[in-house]
């Protein structure tokens, strides 16, 4: 029987999300309001929003499962993600914010089009195709996790769980726009932070303390204590560690994360948000890995390591906290899905409809269209999720790397290398995306399962550089970049407002 306490906690959480949706709706009547909250968000919101968007159900179910399965070896993921998040906030966020304010951009293709004087709208069309295809897969994967979470915690059944989760997400995302998404991300991020700070401590104490924890891991499998894991310093071991570290590259240029930098109120908010975001990701990742490792000692014979978090929460905590852990899993899912839906909607409405076909359309009409498109894309994700798309984490990693490899190399080059040309950026965007797909389908198995982010990212970077060098340098880019740099200052300097 379902605990009424758990139901009450869940009910309160869903109600708060609906209220945030209605509250955010007041600023979603024009395109900039609906897609970037009018660029007025404060540091705490953008910091938590970027992390809870970047971390999906994979953090709570997948990374805890990874800690359970491979132990200390999973810390390579922590290393990659912390480095990726830190580098993004230190080096990428402020120049990107300065450029996008200068161009009045509200999407990444907006920025790329202005930066490279792309009058043929190639970046918009390519961006929309890539975003829509990847977001559909990613959303479906997250909805699948929603159904599983509802079913495992409440016994609602898989399909009912998917419907309930999507209905709530669609309400607050379509009504409240980006402001509701960002503030709900803040709430969800705080919940995830609290859960992943508490869970490993309680779990290690439940084992009996640090020494029994380490002894228990050694008894289960001595390889759990080694950074190289069972593979050691072999080609497969190095490929595995490199792939784990490579996950963090996506934080440098994925469009759903760059949107947070754009939506900041000003440069100072970004400077203040940086330490919050990085400390937050440290707690998220270290907490998840150590919770999984403690779970291995407490419950050594699980068929599916990815069930360790629900198991720990139900066995170590009273019903109230079990309810909170349920909403934390849902929070991780919802905070990712809402951001992806807004991103996909902006690709259709801002990048294609407004900027290519209907520049004269009113702001109110475009905003309404954005809400309708959000619901349609969510419905497509629903159809895919109900079609037994059960390979959650394969899809998540695939979509995460596909989006990241299309945009990250090009965005980095555009921010830091004035010699980057329009042709180079277009080739790099297409190349990064295609290499990721091709690697997964044809090469991955033959290269010790090397994660596709690495060939996709570095391939995209190489193509961007080579094609740029082979084409005519863009006029004025050098002066513009110098001007942006002077306005932003160094990574740790106070910003001059630009």
């Amino acid at each position: 029987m379902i605990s009424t306490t758990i139901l009450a906690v869940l009910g309160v959480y869903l109600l708060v999300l609906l209220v945030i949706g209605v509250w955010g709706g007041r600023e979603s009547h024009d395109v900039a309001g609906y897609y970037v909250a009018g660029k007025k968000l404060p540091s705490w919101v953008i910091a938590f929003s970027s992390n809870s968007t970047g971390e999906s159900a994979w953090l709570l179910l997948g990374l805890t499962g990874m800690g359970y399965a491979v132990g200390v070896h999973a810390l390579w993921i922590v290393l990659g993600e912390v480095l990726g998040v830190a580098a993004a906030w230190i080096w990428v966020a402020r120049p990107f914010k300065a450029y996008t304010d200068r161009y009045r951009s509200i999407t990444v293709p907006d920025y790329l089009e202005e930066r490279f004087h792309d009058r043929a709208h190639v970046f918009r069309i390519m961006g929309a195709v890539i975003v829509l295809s990847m977001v559909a897969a990613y959303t479906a994967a997250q909805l699948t996790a929603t159904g599983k979470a509802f079913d495992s915690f409440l016994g609602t059944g898989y399909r009912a769980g998917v419907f309930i989760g999507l209905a709530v997400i669609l309400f607050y995302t379509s009504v409240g726009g980006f402001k509701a998404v960002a503030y709900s991300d803040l709430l969800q991020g705080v919940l995830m932070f609290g859960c992943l700070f508490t869970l490993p401590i309680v779990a290690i104490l439940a084992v009996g303390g640090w020494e029994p924890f380490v002894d228990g891991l050694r008894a289960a499998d001595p390889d759990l204590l080694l950074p190289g894991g069972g593979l050691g310093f072999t080609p497969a071991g190095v490929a595995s560690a490199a792939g784990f570290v490579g996950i963090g590259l996506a934080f440098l240029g994925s469009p759903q994360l760059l949107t947070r930098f754009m939506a900041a109120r000003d440069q100072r908010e970004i400077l203040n948000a940086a330490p919050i975001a990085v400390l937050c990701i440290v707690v998220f990742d270290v907490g998840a890995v150590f919770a999984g490792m403690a779970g291995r000692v407490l419950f050594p014979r699980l068929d599916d390591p990815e069930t360790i978090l629900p198991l720990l929460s139900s066995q170590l905590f009273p019903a109230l906290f079990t309810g909170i852990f349920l909403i934390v899993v849902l929070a991780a899912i919802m905070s990712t899905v809402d951001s992806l839906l807004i991103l996909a909607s902006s690709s259709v409405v801002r990048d294609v409809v407004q900027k290519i076909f209907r520049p004269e359309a009113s702001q109110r009409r475009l905003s309404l269209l954005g809400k309708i498109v959000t619901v349609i894309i969510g419905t497509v994700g629903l159809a895919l999720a109900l079609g037994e798309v059960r390979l959650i984490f394969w899809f998540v990693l695939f979509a995460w790397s596909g989006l990241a490899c299309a945009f990250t190399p090009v965005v980095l080059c555009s921010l830091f290398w004035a010699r980057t040309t329009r042709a180079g950026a277009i080739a790099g965007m297409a190349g990064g995306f295609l290499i990721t797909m091709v690697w997964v389908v044809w090469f991955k198995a033959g290269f010790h399962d090397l994660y596709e982010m690495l060939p996709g990212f570095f391939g995209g970077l190489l193509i961007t550089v080579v094609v740029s060098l082979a084409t005519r340098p863009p006029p004025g880019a050098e002066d513009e970049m110098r001007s942006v740099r002077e306005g932003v200052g160094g990574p740790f300097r106070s910003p001059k407002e630009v």
Partner: protein
Amino acid sequence: MIGGLPWTAWVLLAAAVAPGVGLAVVSYRVHRADHRPLDRCDGSGGVEGGGEPGGLSGGPAQPGGGPFQPGDP
């Protein structure tokens, strides 16, 4: 072995956590430098004071060498 874990595991954990802690410390110093009164800084810090406001270059130029006290004029 340190605390039952191999030293390599500790190195990996430290490498993973250090960027977060380092950035927090440096950002806090920049934040603090931003919020001190300009007339206490001889024009060498602050938002647009012409000098290094802190961070990697060794910290803000504080008259007297001590940290800014909130009650100071």
